[in-house]
């Protein structure tokens, strides 16, 4: 019997959700952080979407948010010209790092010892979190605002994407530019899993996959609409993408075939990420919500329950909902 996808809507934000990130898998499950223009990033339990807490302190829109691997620390980048580091267990603010312009992106090294930031002042900064008073190392080169910056190649290199239509690779120790990828249009997103060998880049309607070591193009796929974000499944069999037509698309990675598309959001999709176990993907939208989508529709996982035909109508102590009513924004 064919099953129809039931997305789980996480409400709470009052303005567009512009970034989201998952932690790794911890003894307490995995976690999800969302960056929102309402200035109040939220932490949620990754497999259910249950709200855990809100990081209070920023005085402007939060453009970027990230968690370290074990979800003990969070970092956020905001329009109030600061990046903040938070204790992700207590919700307390640990550090405020002042910048000279809007901060757009933050990323921890694998051991959480350093934080990379980037933003509208076109500089990449590396903060040593054990010595936060010290001035950060700065890397200049981009000629426009930096949108996304990631630690790369076991934290030995840095990858940054900017409005200057380039993605640049930098060597961390020499702080020199190693390679530049140039595009015809601004890159909308960049994803790289720390143990992966594939870099996912989106621009226009294109979702492109690059070999992470050589930065050679492996393949690219055209979507039906401009894409803002894409994510590759940990097992590299699917990828998902979302953009300006409000829909989520699921593609087969090997043959590039569009498998499914889902309506649900009431605004453009700004970010989409697979969970670390690949069982679900989360999307953040202009409509102020996050939605969780099943990779294998109909499987029992998190809040989704597989109900076999013979179970329907049987004495069951659990209350089941089918198709929660869509509440129009």
């Amino acid at each position, binding site marked *: *019997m*064919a*099953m*129809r*996808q*039931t997305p*789980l*809507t*996480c*409400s*709470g934000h009052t303005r567009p959700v512009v970034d989201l990130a998952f932690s790794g898998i911890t003894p*307490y499950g995995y976690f999800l952080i969302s960056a929102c223009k309402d200035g109040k990033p*939220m*932490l*949620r339990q990754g497999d*259910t*979407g*249950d*709200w*855990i*807490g*809100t*990081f*209070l*302190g920023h005085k402007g829109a939060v453009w970027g948010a990230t968690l370290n691997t074990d979800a*003990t620390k969070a970092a956020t980048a905001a329009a109030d010209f600061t990046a903040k580091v938070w*204790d992700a*267990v*207590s*919700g307390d603010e640990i550090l405020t790092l002042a910048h000279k312009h809007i901060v757009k992106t933050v990323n921890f090294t694998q051991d959480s010892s350093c934080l990379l930031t980037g933003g509208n002042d076109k500089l990449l900064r590396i903060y040593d979190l054990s010595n936060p008073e010290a001035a950060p190392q700065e890397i200049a080169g981009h000629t426009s605002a930096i949108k996304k910056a990631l630690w790369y190649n076991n934290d030995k290199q840095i990858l940054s994407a900017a409005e200057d239509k380039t993605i640049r690779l930098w060597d961390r120790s020499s702080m020199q530019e190693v390679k530049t990828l140039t595009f015809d249009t601004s890159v909308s997103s960049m994803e790289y899993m720390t143990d992966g060998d594939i870099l996912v880049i989106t621009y226009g309607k294109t979702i492109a996959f690059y070999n992470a070591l050589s930065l050679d193009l492996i393949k690219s796929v055209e979507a039906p609409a401009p894409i803002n974000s894409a994510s590759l499944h940990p097992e590299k069999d699917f990828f998902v993408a979302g953009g300006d037509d409000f829909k989520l698309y699921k593609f087969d990675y090997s043959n590039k075939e569009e498998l499914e598309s889902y309506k649900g959001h009431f605004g453009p999709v700004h970010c989409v990420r697979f969970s670390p176990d690949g069982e679900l993907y989360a999307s953040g939208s202009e409509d102020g919500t996050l939605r*969780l989508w*099943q990779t294998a*529709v*109909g499987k029992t996982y998190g*809040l*989704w*329950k*597989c*109900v076999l035909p013979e179970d329907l109508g049987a004495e069951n102590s*659990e*209350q*089941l*909902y*089918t*198709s*929660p009513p869509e509440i129009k924004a």
Partner: protein
Amino acid sequence: ERLNMATPVSVLRLPKGPDPNSRGFDPRSPRFIALCRTSIPASAASEADAEQLQKEQHARSVLRETFLRCLLSMTNKKVQFRMHENVKVEATFGASDIDVLNFQVSDLHTPIGVQKEALIRCQDVISFTFDV
């Protein structure tokens, strides 16, 4: 547009939303209890001196109780707040929220006029004074 007659996947419940009264991070959650470093210096040490621990805990209880009694006795009194950016204002204190994130005050005297009702953000407050 395909007409999809398939059965929608059932869900146990909807994801829990934010608590309107708190910023969350429940201190009773297993993760919090396991991972939050205790703020009592003595108990953080591997060999906690029971007597030292008790002394510190007693001191903490006294300080906390004093603070809470202070907030209680401030109710309806005129309080002067010293805040960041060299701000000094006076208002009649109403109440604090449970996380001590905001103070509810009335007749807040500011350089640009008197605000009948206001919330003061606690993280911006450096100190406050009032007559007992």
